[in-house]
């Protein structure tokens, strides 16, 4: 409607004033969101001596030196990045593949326990893993998985929230007719899932891959209970170690670089794919 601005009602604020307020608030919030990362970037480029002297908004030239310092420092940050990457990648691949499989089982087939299992998964979706952590630690100690990546990777196979997202996506994007057509063509069920249904699910798989990866990359609670050897620790544990009692002994430039290194990969991925990520947030929980 081209003339809608004339329709604006007397008594309320004019559309122009409301637009100004909206932009001012949005710009303030943008500042509030980005300011910390700007400080992080500035401080990553400054030396320890400069950092103790006070605060500035202009970058210095010690970034490479600080990164080098982290590389040869006491905290194995780069090793931690590799560990985090291994855990997050394998866990998210397993999570997405098997969640799609579980959703496929519930969506495509009709069997007696179907409704009960679907209800059960939805019911436990919100139960946090922390409440079972005690039993989890006891279990993995008993089966000899303590201090290994396996207890961080294998449980990703059973992810109720990812399952729920996949199931919703199938309802809107995977018609039953496709599965039936494949059957008539003589395609075995296993193959129908892997080479016909999964490709249709690609957009959902991509979105969930990112969310699973980020969740595992950022996870601190469980890895901190499971991993004990320094060379096996993931990034969040190493970051937490920086905040130990002898915090003041650390080179502050290196502390900032370590924080930046643990945040940077996610930010880079996010900036490249933000459209899909922001679009995927709402779908999993609220169907518009």
């Amino acid at each position: 409607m081209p003339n809608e601005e004339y329709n604006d009602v007397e008594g309320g604020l004019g559309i122009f004033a409301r637009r100004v307020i909206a932009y001012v608030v949005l710009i303030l919030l943008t500042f509030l969101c980005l300011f910390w990362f700007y400080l992080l970037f500035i401080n990553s480029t400054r030396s320890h001596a400069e950092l103790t002297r006070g605060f500035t908004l202009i970058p210095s030239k010690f970034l490479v030196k600080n990164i080098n310092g982290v590389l040869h420092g006491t905290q194995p940050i780069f090793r931690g990045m590799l560990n985090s990457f291994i855990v997050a990648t394998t866990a998210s691949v397993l999570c997405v593949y098997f969640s799609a499989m579980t959703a496929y089982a519930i969506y495509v087939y009709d069997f007696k326990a179907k409704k009960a299992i679907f209800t059960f998964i939805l019911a436990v979706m919100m139960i946090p893993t922390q409440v079972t952590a005690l039993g989890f630690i006891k279990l993995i100690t008993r089966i000899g998985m303590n201090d290994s990546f396996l207890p961080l990777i294998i449980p990703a196979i059973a992810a109720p929230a990812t399952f729920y997202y996949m199931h919703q996506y199938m309802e809107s994007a995977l018609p039953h007719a496709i599965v039936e057509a494949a059957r008539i063509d003589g395609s075995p069920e296993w193959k129908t899932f892997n080479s016909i249904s999964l490709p249709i699910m690609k957009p959902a798989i991509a979105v969930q891959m990112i969310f699973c990866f980020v969740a595992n990359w950022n996870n601190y609670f469980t890895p901190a209970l499971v991993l004990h050897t320094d060379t096996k620790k993931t990034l969040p544990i190493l970051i937490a170690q920086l905040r130990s009692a002898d915090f003041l002994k650390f080179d502050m430039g290196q502390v900032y670089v370590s924080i930046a290194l643990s945040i940077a990969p996610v930010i880079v991925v996010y900036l490249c794919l933000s459209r899909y990520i922001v679009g995927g947030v709402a779908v999993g929980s609220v169907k518009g």
Partner: protein
Amino acid sequence: MAKEKKATSQVVKYNKWGYIFLIPFVVVYSIFQLIPLFTTIYNSFFENYRSGLKQVGPNFVGFENFITIFSNGDIPKYFSNTMVMWIAGFIPQIVISLILAAWFADTRLRIKASGFFKTVIYMPNLIMASAFAMLFFTLFSDIGPINSMLQQMGIISEPYKFLGHTISARTLVAFMNCLMWFGNTTILLMAGMLGIDGALFEAAQVDGATSTQVFFKITLPLLRPILVYVMITSLIGGLQMFDVPQILTNGEGNPMRSTMTMIMYLNKHLYSKNYGLGGAMSVFLFIITGILSIFVFKFSTQKEN
């Protein structure tokens, strides 16, 4: 007749694949979630801890552990800490999110670059909470940039100990939680608002309603189910509050245990291998989140129909 019978058995043959495809989920879930849940509940009925080099228990003590964590003030204290910090973060979060969502969804307002704004406000949600907390710790430390900025501007003469006072330490945790989650909430609420029938807004406009009236009389009431959903999921998330206060306070929950959350307490007992009290805490959390989950479950299944 024979043909029909054959067709049914075909379908049954297909449907057994439903069970086969469910095997990985069921096996992994049972081993890594259900068994640990039962072990946790089982352990909550035993006295089992280390006192110096001496191992005490496991001895069956019934509900003794539950009575202990309630009567020695641990649960009341840490529950209220968690709730105070959650509420202090959630109120600004929901207010900001409601306003932003209404603006983004308002076709008359036509916000330019809304994609950019959404990208920016959602970003903190993906940042590693522990790294973000470490960043805030360094920025707000006694010799950190925030203190030196305030001093250079002449607002304070001595460095302010942000983590030395209950009010500022809790505010910092609440502020970080709000910052990390308001983008997520905005997007959820916006999706809900876009789902409202546009004809309602047009009708209100024709009747001469102001945008404030439209917001309070149409948008809010229709948005109520989603608001409840957002609140309950956020509450469940709030009960799990851990990374931020744990790293800001180095697991101490200082000052005076005022930022110690329930999961931090649980984490402490898991490290010191006090499985009795840790188990009791876990069961308490399980019951609360279980009750809250029922609401989320109702919301999800309602939508299915």
